């Protein structure tokens, strides 16, 4: 008797140990994943935060005839390399717009050059010549150089000079493209799902379509870019690099995701609701519009938002349709050339000027913030939709 119990205990202990180990493996896996995530965030935020500050320099600006002819005369010679060219070259235009400036000298805070900026932020690769380093050090003591919040990062488009580069144009491009994607993908996707789920007969053909839709959700996104190039640009003549072609291409990519999510949401609505509606004499249209669709709506929205968030972070298909380009101006219409946030991040990451490194990280931070917000909205909808029937 006692012998038997002893064996049973040993077995139990062994099982308990295996149980513990199993939990430990799980814990190790999640710690590993979290460590990566943490590393990523620390790295990106550490690199990106400096980009939200920008160096400014206080100089005397000469609004004179000489400046009108050559903008390099706007500041004293020794400051010429310290102030940003992007500001300098606009001085003549500014004088044209404000004739009363002519002949005056004014003290102004102006945009600093990227090397000055990097030097002030303590980046080792600043490449500022030592003669200018001492000059900046002196100016720092005098208080004629400062780091301010980089509002230009949010109010300007792309630029070849990092101090002037911002995400506005690409953010507007992203919004336009996403709106178009939504306009095309959501109605088509939802209608497809309704038809397949509510009306289509269950036969070989619909099964084939279903299998294909599931497969399409998994194919590499770059193929959608090639498809978009062939159909929209070469066949339909949609302008290359435009928001329209980007939106259409991403819509193609998002469609399967939306269809699958919508079908799942529709399937979750119990049949008793449909039967009750039919029992009261409702037509198929009324059953779907008045009962099934409203109940499935939160699920559909969640799926659509996740699909759109995916589209927002996509770059590969857009490369093929020409959106990975230098486009510093925000588009005026959906037919004009546009770039998008992930494309902007990609172009910055391959720039040779060091100051673009922090802009790249800052761009990633903005993109991540938008994606997290979108996902939070999706989660909110999902929580709301946790109906018990």
């Amino acid at each position, binding site marked *: 008797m006692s012998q038997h119990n002893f064996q049973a205990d040993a077995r139990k202990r062994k099982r308990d140990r295996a149980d513990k180990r199993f939990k430990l493996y799980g814990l190790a896996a999640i710690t590993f994943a979290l460590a990566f995530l943490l590393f990523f965030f620390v790295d990106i935020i550490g690199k990106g935060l400096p980009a939200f500050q920008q160096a400014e320099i206080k100089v005397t600006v000469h609004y004179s005839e000489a400046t009108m002819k050559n903008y390099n005369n706007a500041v004293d010679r020794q400051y010429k390399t310290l102030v940003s*060219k*992007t500001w300098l*070259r*606009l001085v*003549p*235009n500014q004088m044209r717009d404000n004739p009363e400036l002519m002949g005056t000298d004014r003290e102004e805070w102006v945009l600093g050059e990227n090397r000055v900026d990097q030097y002030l932020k303590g980046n*080792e*690769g600043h*490449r500022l010549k030592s003669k200018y380093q001492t000059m900046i050090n002196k100016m720092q003591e005098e208080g004629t150089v400062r780091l301010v919040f980089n509002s230009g990062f949010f109010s300007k488009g792309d*630029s*070849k*000079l990092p101090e002037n580069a911002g995400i506005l144009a690409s953010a507007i491009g992203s919004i336009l493209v996403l709106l*178009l994607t939504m*306009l*095309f993908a*959501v*109605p*088509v996707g939802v209608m497809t799902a309704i038809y397949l789920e509510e009306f289509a007969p269950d036969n070989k053909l619909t099964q084939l379509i279903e299998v294909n839709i599931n497969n399409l959700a998994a194919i590499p996104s770059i193929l959608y870019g090639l498809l978009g190039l062939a159909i929209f640009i070469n066949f*339909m*003549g*949609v*302008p*290359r*690099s435009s928001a*329209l072609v980007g939106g*259409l291409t991403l819509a193609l990519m998002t469609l399967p995701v939306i269809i699958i999510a919508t079908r799942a949401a529709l399937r979750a609505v119990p049949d008793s609701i449909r039967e009750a509606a039919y029992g009261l004499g409702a037509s198929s249209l009324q059953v779907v519009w008045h009962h099934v669709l409203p109940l499935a709506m939160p699920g559909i929205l969640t799926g659509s938002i996740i699909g759109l968030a995916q589209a927002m972070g996509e770059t590969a298909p857009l490369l093929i349709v*020409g959106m*990975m*380009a*230098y*486009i*510093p*101006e925000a588009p005026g219409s*959906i*037919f*004009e*050339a546009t770039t998008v946030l992930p494309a902007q991040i990609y172009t910055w*990451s*391959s*720039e*040779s*000027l*060091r100051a673009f*490194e922090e802009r790249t990280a800052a761009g990633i931070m903005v993109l991540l913030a938008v994606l997290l917000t979108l996902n939070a909205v999706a989660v909110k909808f999902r929580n709301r939709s946790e109906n018990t029937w």
Partner: protein
Amino acid sequence: MKKIIMATAALLLGATAAQAGGDQIHIVGSSTVYPFSSYVAEELGATTKFKTPVVESTGSGGGMKLFCAGNGMDTPDITNASRRMKDKEYKQCQENGVKYITEVVVGYDGIALAQSKDTAPMNLTRKQILLAVAAEVPNKEGTALIANPYHFWDEIDASLPHRKITFYGPPTSSGTRDAFEDLTMKAVAKKMDVYTNLYKADQKANKKYKKYHEVRQDGVYVPSGENDNLIVQKLTKDPEALGIFGYSYLTENSDRISAATIAGIAPSPAAVQDGSYKLARSLYFYIKKSHIDKVPGMKEYINLFTSEQMIGDGGACTEIGLIALPEEMRAKYRAQAANLTNLKPEDLKAK
């Protein structure tokens, strides 16, 4: 929902009716010229009333293909190239109705072989580089070709250090790779009998030996993507390795990497201009003349790009890595751009 569907339909109709706009310059082409081209584009957009031209980096070959596709307003107006237009491409252009093209040289681009700053300096000749990266190299007697056996530099030449051969370089799609193959491998191999004799023996089957430029694929040459920043990072981690990239990246990252000298000459603007540094090439752009009067700002863009302010000594483009042409050459191409001189097929044959 109804409204959304209606709006979608309207948009779709609008899309098919709309024509690609001709109110903005569209530039494609080489990723090497891209930084200069887009800088000029930005300056044009910022200082004039014209819209900022769209500059897309498609690679030299990709740019030529788009440029030569036809005269329609949806085709690019200008293409940049890090090499001269090829005969084949010129013919393609002619066949598709792109009859009148103007060629402009804007400056030079040097290729640098660089290594981590902490590594002892290295001096190589172009032949040594060929022997290190070619898939097939001459055997010890120099009579026949064998698969590349070299894994350490001192195996190639006893005067070189006992250092592992590793190259991080651009992939085949890149203009920098083209230039690397042209400037080192082809330039040397076309003068080496062991390669050319094979070609002479059977011109059809051994065409590749005329100007041999096959890179070994046994892991010694590591294609590292178009992103040169990545190569810089790899070099700092692997001090024995050499990286291949554009001159501008070298100056930008001079705190992390240093250049190997080629036949005793370090890459510098002066050495490129006088021709003593051999790993350098010209950068071009090609203008579609039929678009000049149709796209606003074309002339202004061309004038700005060829101005001293941009490509002269100390000009804006030279500040971001372009190596300026000698002064008389600049004047020549400035005139050529202003007069929109036609490119003739004979020009492409002359070297």
